[in-house]
């Protein structure tokens, strides 16, 4: 009998908890519905776009250029540490960004576009005026694309010399940029 009483009592508590939970959940759901619709009504007046914080490439370029100029000043006072920063930004642009885009590219055209952008990022738009240089950049880009896309060992072996030559040339370009 005592056990039955305990079970009944436990059941009642459970039932009560269930009701409280259910009403809280329903209440929350109602509030959420109300919240959503009221937000919808008022959002046109107060809402800021979720992409408003995106900095355009152009603006980003201005920020980094300005940072480099300022770092030039502090370079006079504080030694060479900011030179490292400038160097890193260049590396990020040319190697990481280029590399990331390259790894994401789905076709040769996409890859070459990212590749050219990365190189021009380092040297400025003036590079585009030099036809010979642009041809070389594209040629190397094509070779690198081949290297990335053809993954079997045999092809890599065959292309190894060309790839190494491309890398040396690219390294030379980067050194010129410093």
């Amino acid at each position: 009998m005592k056990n039955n009483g305990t079970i009944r009592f436990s059941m009642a508590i459970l039932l009560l908890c269930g009701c409280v939970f259910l009403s809280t959940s329903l209440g929350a759901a109602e509030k959420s519905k109300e919240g959503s619709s009221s937000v919808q009504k008022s959002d046109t007046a107060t809402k800021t776009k979720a992409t408003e914080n995106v900095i355009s490439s152009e603006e980003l370029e201005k920020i980094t250029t300005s940072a480099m100029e300022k770092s030039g000043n502090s370079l006079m006072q504080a030694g060479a540490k900011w030179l490292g920063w400038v160097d890193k930004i260049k590396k990020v642009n040319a190697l990481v960004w280029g590399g990331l885009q390259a790894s994401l590219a789905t076709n040769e055209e996409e890859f070459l576009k990212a590749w050219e952008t990365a190189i021009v990022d380092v040297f400025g738009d003036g590079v585009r005026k030099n036809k010979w240089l642009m041809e070389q950049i594209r040629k190397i880009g094509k070779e690198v694309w081949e290297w990335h896309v053809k993954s079997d060992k045999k092809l890599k072996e065959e292309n190894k010399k060309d790839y190494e030559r491309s890398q040396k040339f690219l390294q030379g370009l980067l050194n010129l940029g410093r």
Partner: protein
Amino acid sequence: MKTTKLLTTAALIMGCAGSMQMAFAGNAQNTAENPFEGNISVMRIFAKDTPVKTVKDWMSKGAGAKWEKMIQPTVRKDGSAPLLKNFFATAVVFTGARNEDSGIAAFYNVWQDSILLFQMDNSERFSAPENFIFLPGSVFRGEKFNAEKPAQSIFPANEAFDLAIIRTYQATKKVFDSKFSGKKAMPEFAGYLKNDSDGMFADVTVNAYLNAKLLAALKDPGNTAALKEADRFGDLLQSGNIGELEKVFSGKNVKSMLEKFTAFPAATRESIVITAFLKGKNQSIYAYSSALWPELAILISVPKENGKPTFLMLFLNDKFAQQIMNIKSK
């Protein structure tokens, strides 16, 4: 980065849906019960709009002067600092050991993988940071900073983005807790202060720059469709009702996930901002977080071929991160 991985994780997350609510409730409770954390959180809200002035004014005189000088290269002529704004907008607060005189806390932004670590002076009427160091997450975790190999949470080269976010967050939090929860908090902080402050900030800026560069692709002339999508998703997350969200998003247990998402306070949703954009071979990922509650992360994956975008909700807090990592390791 693979859709399958994302979907699997989404399913796993929904498996511990109850814990998500607990985690959310737990977090809100922590802030309410912990004025130390509450005050720092409020400061972040101001700093996300005016990082240069707010942080300088908040800090002690000496620390403020150090801050002003250190961040100067990234401040624009008009006094704004967009990279720093983005850092504060979606940085979570970590709090460590504290007493009447002093305490350790940090702002950590997983999307930029950078941490602003500071020591609070609690002896004054209004506690304020007395000293600080801004570090790339990698250096804080005891790894080497390498600009050419960005953190997985900035660009996930080796694993799915959702896991990269959780893993990077958890690794950083683990280091913070192990170093700053006990009596050794102050000596540990002093150890980090030995780093070259300006040099470390340069690396922090490289991380912020890389995150911003990936996002900037949205505003490139050839990407108008992606920007439109980002805005459409942003609008839906900020104010869409459950019916509207269900029409657009798919995913395993998406209904249950969306129900929980739409139950968040309106202000939390209204302050949702984009935090990352990754264009992959088979899909694009748009990531969002709430500037009011940065523990909330939403990843929307859009397949290249026809198909509905996938909705995935993550929480940057200990309980949630541990559950995900435990499930993954089983």
